[in-house]
């Protein structure tokens, strides 16, 4: 596609000592002094980003672990052991939030994982209009989520919404969509897939282009039909990308917040769209219980750490 961004550095490391610059003062201490100066310059370039990371990334990570075992009352911090975890565990919303989050993840994997892959397969088959189709699929990714989510809220409206109107054309009775506990989560996932599928589709398209055509020819000689070719050639050939995207999708969907928050006010009918992150949000910003929010966050972190580690390892393996 474009510049070889991810190619490895072809330059062989040379350890040849550099000649001193003409006119450079000969410092006492020689090699050591030069090294020191080089390091001061290098760390000077680094300091801005490092400070930002220290304040807004590293320190908050440590703080998250501390918070989970602390309680803050009237500005006084005390250690409470596992109390926050017990509080969170005994909350009736806890079980429901996990079930909802898992349900969302399963639905989002069925829709959000399969739909972009099939879309990429379809687009890849055409010899015309690929640019236009790619543009269409990526368009929603560029909208501010607030705009697309509020837009979907209108489309889902049981009265004046477009979705019931379209279903009516096919003789399907009107649905309650977001107002019905049975369809609320599915509606959220459909909106979320529409908003986010563009990136995955483009990545799959790039991967499909690297599948050697001879493999399809060989499969045809063996009498393979379309589906068998997809299953026995395309999927194995793009296996690594598919696996990486699967992991990323799991990590992303387990953290879903904005779609349920804006579409159903967070909890949804009978709590049917309460997710873990929404619960964290509630503890922290509605109940001011930062300890419980941190404890819940840690549980999510532990669960996702495995997926993250697998993703990082695979990604590194793929790029080397």
């Amino acid at each position: 596609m474009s510049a070889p961004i991810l190619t490895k550095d072809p330059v062989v490391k040379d350890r040849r000592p550099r000649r001193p610059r003409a006119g450079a003062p000969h410092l006492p201490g020689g090699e050591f002094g030069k090294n020191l100066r080089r390091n001061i310059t290098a760390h000077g370039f680094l300091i801005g980003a490092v400070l930002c990371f220290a304040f807004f990334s590293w320190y908050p990570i440590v703080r998250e672990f501390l918070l989970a075992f602390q309680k803050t009352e009237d500005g006084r911090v005390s250690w409470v052991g596992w109390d926050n975890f017990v509080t969170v565990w005994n909350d009736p919303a806890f079980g429901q939030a996990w079930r909802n989050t898992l349900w969302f993840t399963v639905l989002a994997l069925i829709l959000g994982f399969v739909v972009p892959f099939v879309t990429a397969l379809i687009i890849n088959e055409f010899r015309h209009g690929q640019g236009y189709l790619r543009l269409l699929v990526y368009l929603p990714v560029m909208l501010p989520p607030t705009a697309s989510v509020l837009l979907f809220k209108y489309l889902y409206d049981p009265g004046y919404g477009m979705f019931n109107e379209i279903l009516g054309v096919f003789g399907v009775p009107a649905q309650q969509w977001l107002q019905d506990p049975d369809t609320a989560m599915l509606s959220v996932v459909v909106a979320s897939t529409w908003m986010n599928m563009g990136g995955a589709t483009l990545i799959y398209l790039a991967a499909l282009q690297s599948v050697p055509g001879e493999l399809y020819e060989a499969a045809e000689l063996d009498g393979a039909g379309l589906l068998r070719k997809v299953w026995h050639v395309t999927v194995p050939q793009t296996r690594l990308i598919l696996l990486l995207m699967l992991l990323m999708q799991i990590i992303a969907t387990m953290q879903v917040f904005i779609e349920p928050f804006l579409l159903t006010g967070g909890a949804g009918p009978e709590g049917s769209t309460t997710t873990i992150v929404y619960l964290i949000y509630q503890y922290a910003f509605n109940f001011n219980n930062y300890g419980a929010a941190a404890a819940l966050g840690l549980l999510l972190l532990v669960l996702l750490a495995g997926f993250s580690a697998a993703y990082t390892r695979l990604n590194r393996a793929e790029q080397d």
Partner: protein
Amino acid sequence: MSTRTLISPAQLARPRGKVLYWVCFALVVVLFTLAFLGPLYWMVSGGLKTTQEAVQTPPTWVPGSVHPENYQRAWEVMDLAKLLMNTLYYAFGALAFQLVLDVAAAYSLSKLRPVLGKAILGLMLATLMIPATVLVVPQYLTVLDVPIVERNLLNSPWAIWLPSVTNAFNIFLLKRFFDSIPKELLDAAAMDGAGSLRVLWSIVLPVSRPILGVVSIFAVVGVWKDFLWPMLVLPDPSKQTLAVGIYSLATSVPENVLIASLTIASLPTLLLFLAFQRNIMSGLTAGGLKG
């Protein structure tokens, strides 16, 4: 375009194959256009309807009467000019901070190779493994009272700008690109007496334009699209971003005016995308999997 795909060229060359191909193609184009442009069409046209028409059952496909003044009303009632200016200010501020600090860091890690550089890069990349939402609470508490300097950054643009620098993926992307710049080029410049800053400015940056473009676009779009973080750290309505402001005013304005404001909020990033779609799409696939 001669790469072999799922369906064999021989099959496509037959008359039946040709007909089937074009039928499928037409179907897919229509379907995709409806699925992806349909909601956008509905948004733009919904903003042109009267309030009654916007909430009538059954809905109308084409506005009965056209009311472009809804857009003007949205602009005035919701003070979109203010929200738009705020968002631009945050987005380009974040861009400036990311370009200066992340590029400097990546350059240092890639070419100057300081002591502990590897460890620092490792610590930065490790943050990618922590789910972002888990950090929202402790990050928020940090912004309330930044340690050591003891400042409250609530309602200040710094609360958007500084955390935006902690984008380990940007640094990784930039470092990989800088790694591919031949060392001889930089050594030659150093031999001619150029300092590190001079080398960065006159050699590294000019050849890195493609990656800088990609990073810049994603920095701006990132701020434009963000919701939870700006909602938390910018509670003052006059300081809010477009995305947050529209959400907080959503229930207090008529539907047609709200829909018009959604169109206005979407326009800048859509235009940016149409203008730079080549860079964005190639950046997405070249930059690996983080989309």
